[in-house]
């Protein structure tokens, strides 16, 4: 009667097929094809970029815009892109975390909802609108600030030659910071709200003040989420085209970040693409490839930072 007996008596039956339910098969198939599709799209985009960019890499250096080869063409743009994004992140992150903490742990519940809603609305404003606001409202306001910086801190190369129009990379960065604020805020707020009550109470029961509770329980728990939010924001800042193209009065590379000049990869592509053809077009696509690679590297670094302390994530 026992199972063991049955097995010895039966002459090697074909291995029974595990039960598979139709719904599971369909769901697994859909999930798998979605996964494959996203890979195909990525490969397609990468292939397009590489193939179309090739002529720019192999062309004679004096045929590239600027006449000194692709590298001299691209590095000021990489610099401008990186600087504007970094300034935007540095400005936006502390504010975003502050707002997120206020909504999740300080604001009375009646206030928290509306504030969160307003922040989310900010994400819905089109970038063209941000660009016009930056050009019409913020840039003129920044002019005197840049003059003051030049007069008082002008010996630092960054603050040399303040622009009077305010159409500088710093102004563009400030607008970028406002644009990425809602992304970082909502991602951080979501993870802060998910902090287990058990851990918050553990901290409070040890005699933690509200801020100490946040420092011991909420922030460490939310760290991967904060980094994720920053990376999403960075992704948007790196790729933002319209706002930068409208605000910035672009030009050659300069250390003076409060002067007009510099440009970013997306703004450069947007401004030059309509009239581009031939090798010029290939050069712009190559610039796009560089942006793609930068974004990829940024994301890999973020993943590495999040993974490094996986052991301590509480997921085990």
């Amino acid at each position, binding site marked *: 009667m026992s199972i063991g007996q049955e097995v010895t008596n039966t002459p090697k039956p074909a291995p029974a097929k595990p039960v598979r339910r139709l719904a599971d098969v369909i769901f697994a198939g859909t999930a798998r094809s979605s996964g494959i599709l996203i890979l195909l799209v990525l490969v397609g985009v990468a292939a397009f970029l590489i193939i179309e960019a090739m002529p720019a890499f192999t062309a004679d250096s004096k045929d590239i815009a600027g006449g000194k080869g692709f590298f001299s063409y691209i590095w000021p743009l990489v610099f401008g892109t990186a600087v504007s994004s970094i300034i935007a992140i540095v400005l936006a992150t502390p504010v975003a975390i502050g707002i997120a903490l206020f909504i999740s742990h300080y604001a009375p*519940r009646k206030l928290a909802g509306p504030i969160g809603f307003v922040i989310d609305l900010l994400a819905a404003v089109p970038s063209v609108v941000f660009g016009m606001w930056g050009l019409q409202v913020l840039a003129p306001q920044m002019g005197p600030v840049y003059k003051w910086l030049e007069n008082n801190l002008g010996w630092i190369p960054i603050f040399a030659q303040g622009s009077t129009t305010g159409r500088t990379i710093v102004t563009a960065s400030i607008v970028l910071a406002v644009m990425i604020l809602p992304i970082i805020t909502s991602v951080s707020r979501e993870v802060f709200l998910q902090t*287990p009550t*058990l*851990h918050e*109470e*553990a*901290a*409070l*029961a*040890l*005699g*933690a*003040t509200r801020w*100490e509770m946040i420092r*011991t*329980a909420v922030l*460490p*728990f939310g*760290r991967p989420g904060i980094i994720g939010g920053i990376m999403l924001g960075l992704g948007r800042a790196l790729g933002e085209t319209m706002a930068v193209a409208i605000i910035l009065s672009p030009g050659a590379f300069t250390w003076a970040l409060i002067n007009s000049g510099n440009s970013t990869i997306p703004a450069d592509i947007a401004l030059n693409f309509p009239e581009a053809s031939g090798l010029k077009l290939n050069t712009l696509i190559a610039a796009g490839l560089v942006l793609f690679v930068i974004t990829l590297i940024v994301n890999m670094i973020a993943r590495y930072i999040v993974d490094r*302390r996986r*052991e*301590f*994530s*509480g*997921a*085990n």
Partner: protein
Amino acid sequence: MSKRIEVNDLHVYYGNFLAVEGVSMTIEAKSVTAFIGPSGCGKSTFLRTLNRMHEVIPGARVEGDVLVDGENLYGPTVDPVNVRRQVGMVFQRPNPFPTMSIKQNVLAGVTLNSKKLSNSAADELTERSLRGANLWEEVKDRLDKPGSGLSGGQQQRLCIARAIAIQPEIILMDEPCSALDPISTLAIEDLINELKDQYTVVIVTHNMQQAARVSDRTAFFNIAGTGKPGKLIELADTQTIFQNPTQKATEDYVSGRFG
């Protein structure tokens, strides 16, 4: 360093809902007092008023006095943060901080308030607290590993080590063994027996055998029905509660003839 707790006519509310009504009791220093009673009778809620953790829940409040060696925890000038440094707490589910190592967990309470510890003092305190929680031998080689990697029973002892590291006078335990297997439960019960040499221990438990095993005195809480407030029925020596209670309700409950 243990202290005696006196509770005078304490009412505990969640918003307008009266959860526990009119509790008066005295909890002796250097002893283990167990709270037993059916689910929802307010014993955990009442326990949380003893270190002002109750008011952490929005809308929760109390009326009445809790005196620790004559000092009212609910006095107008008393900072709840200081109360909680005096009255430690161990929760129902083990809750070491997942982002911290075992050692950081032990020191979590001490390093609050930006208090700086020298390395040797930190090592010494870690060892003393972990020994105090009967955990040192099991974790001494992996103090830098995450606390969440320990077994449930070890995690709970880590939480006890974390609580005693700040040298409280009273330790509250809210069903500390309800998420643990019998062997881990025994380890915690042994520990409770040792803790009462130094601390006043108050433990909430669903397990009457546990109350009988670990406590010197037992308080029985009961509830008249859903939506009614919980009440303290009687508090007496554990032996009296289990063998010769004065109240009929207590006798019914401890003998299993409840409800």
